[in-house]
């Protein structure tokens, strides 16, 4: 057996460029490794195809010098395999063939080889080819690195823009379905059916009078934190947060066949999540607070509205207005559901403490609306 069969010839100082020499002839492998090491490259040796594939999988080199005729998988087999796998397709492969063996060169080209080296090996030829491929490989690596960095940056920007509006899960889904986020927004400056939910804090006026100014913002933040969590749990989209009220949309920007159920679940979760906070506020500040909620469905216009320097992703239309008015009309911890949303509600009302149909006169509406009122024990 040869001493070089599975050895390693390394150039200690600048072992940056790594070459794997695959040759069953130890003298040939040792010769190639020596010449590469003299050029400051790091050369590993694999004595057969199986070992070579294992070594490449464990630590991919920057270049493979591959003998064609070997026991086990041939150089062609290995080359084909490397070129067919994503992780190794860009790894440059130089096939070593006999000078006069044109058939092998054709087969090598078909197997995807990047270059050829003639046997017997002329050192000048070997070094010239390796140098060229090394340059090419380094350029390729750099370009790929830059492309990846740009892609990651773009994705991150889109994710950030989305996460201002969408629940993290929904943002992930939107990005999966439309990697640049474009398609989702392009389709949005049009009419679409949504379920709108408005929620606000009851007792806020009292709160702002009874509590030191410095406490108001942290308390509002506590309130919105609970409400936003309820929204995200049900994959709703927050469209606006103003004063003490919150506008949430469902079935937008992605379709949700159970949008009404999601809206009602969100409303109940808002009241239930806020209840312990309200109890604490009552104990600490003697305040009576609760949440009023209005829900209505129907067609709205969805889009980015505003000036180029300040855009707001928003929904505009009658269901939004009705939901807002219902919210104002609702008692503390009451959910008022508009007539169109109520149509799709039959199956999902169980569990609320009281269900009642009621005619409600709303500002801006000539006729009273027949609504469903849900009271949630808070």
């Amino acid at each position, binding site marked *: 057996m040869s001493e070089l069969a599975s050895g390693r010839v390394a150039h200690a100082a600048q072992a940056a460029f790594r070459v794997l020499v695959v040759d069953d002839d130890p003298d040939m492998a*040792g010769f190639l490794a020596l010449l590469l090491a003299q050029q400051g490259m790091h050369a590993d040796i694999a004595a057969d195809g199986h070992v070579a594939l294992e070594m490449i999988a464990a630590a991919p080199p920057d270049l493979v010098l591959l003998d064609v005729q070997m026991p086990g998988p041939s150089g062609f087999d290995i080359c084909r395999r490397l070129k067919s796998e994503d992780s190794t397709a860009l790894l440059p492969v130089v096939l070593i063939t006999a000078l006069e063996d044109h058939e092998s060169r054709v087969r090598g080209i078909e197997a995807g080889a990047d270059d050829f080296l003639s046997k*017997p090996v002329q050192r000048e030829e070997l070094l010239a080819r390796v140098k060229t491929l090394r340059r090419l490989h380094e350029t390729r690596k750099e370009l790929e690195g830059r492309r990846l960095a740009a892609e990651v940056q773009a994705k991150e920007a889109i994710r950030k823009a989305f996460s201002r509006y969408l629940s993290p899960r929904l943002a992930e889904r939107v990005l999966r379905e439309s990697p640049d986020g474009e398609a989702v927004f392009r389709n949005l400056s049009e009419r679409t059916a949504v379920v709108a939910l408005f929620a606000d804090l009851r007792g806020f006026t009292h709160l702002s009078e009874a509590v030191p100014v410095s406490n108001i913002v942290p308390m509002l933040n506590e309130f919105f934190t609970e409400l936003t969590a309820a929204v995200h749990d049900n994959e709703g989209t927050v469209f606006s947060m103003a004063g003490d009220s919150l506008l949430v949309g469902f079935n937008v920007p992605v379709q949700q066949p159970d949008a009404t159920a999601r809206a009602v679940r969100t409303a109940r979760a808002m009241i239930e999540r806020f209840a312990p906070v309200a109890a604490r506020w009552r104990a600490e500040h003697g305040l009576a607070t609760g949440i009023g909620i209005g829900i209505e469905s129907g067609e709205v216009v969805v889009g980015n509205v505003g000036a180029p320097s300040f855009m707001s992703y928003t929904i505009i239309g009658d269901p939004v207005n009705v939901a807002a008015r219902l919210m104002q009309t609702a008692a503390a911890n009451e959910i008022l559901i508009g007539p169109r949303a109520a149509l799709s509600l039959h199956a999902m009302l169980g569990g609320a403490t009281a269900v009642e149909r009621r005619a409600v006169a709303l500002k801006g509406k000539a006729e009273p609306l027949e609504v469903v009122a849900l009271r949630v024990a808070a």
Partner: protein
Amino acid sequence: MTAQPIAVTVAKDLEDLIPTFMKNRSKEVEALRAALAAGNMEQLRQLGHRMKGVGNSYGFELVSTLGKQIEDGAKAGDRAGLEARIAEYADYLARVQIVYE
């Protein structure tokens, strides 16, 4: 046969590899003889092919030349020719003298 030395010039930087290289060539002669005795032409072809590739790479022109002849002889099934080439190879290895430059 006269035992006149045959001088071969080898690059100085290959010096460390040469003892192993020469050991492997002697083993190769034994392998060639065994393959011929067994009538294993495929083995002879492979051994010849390897000699052809490695010989000249190190600077041993005759190893490559004999390798090509052995490869061709094995393909043709020319036993007498193969026997003569293998004898020539053994003789060459016995006489070769390496000069490093």
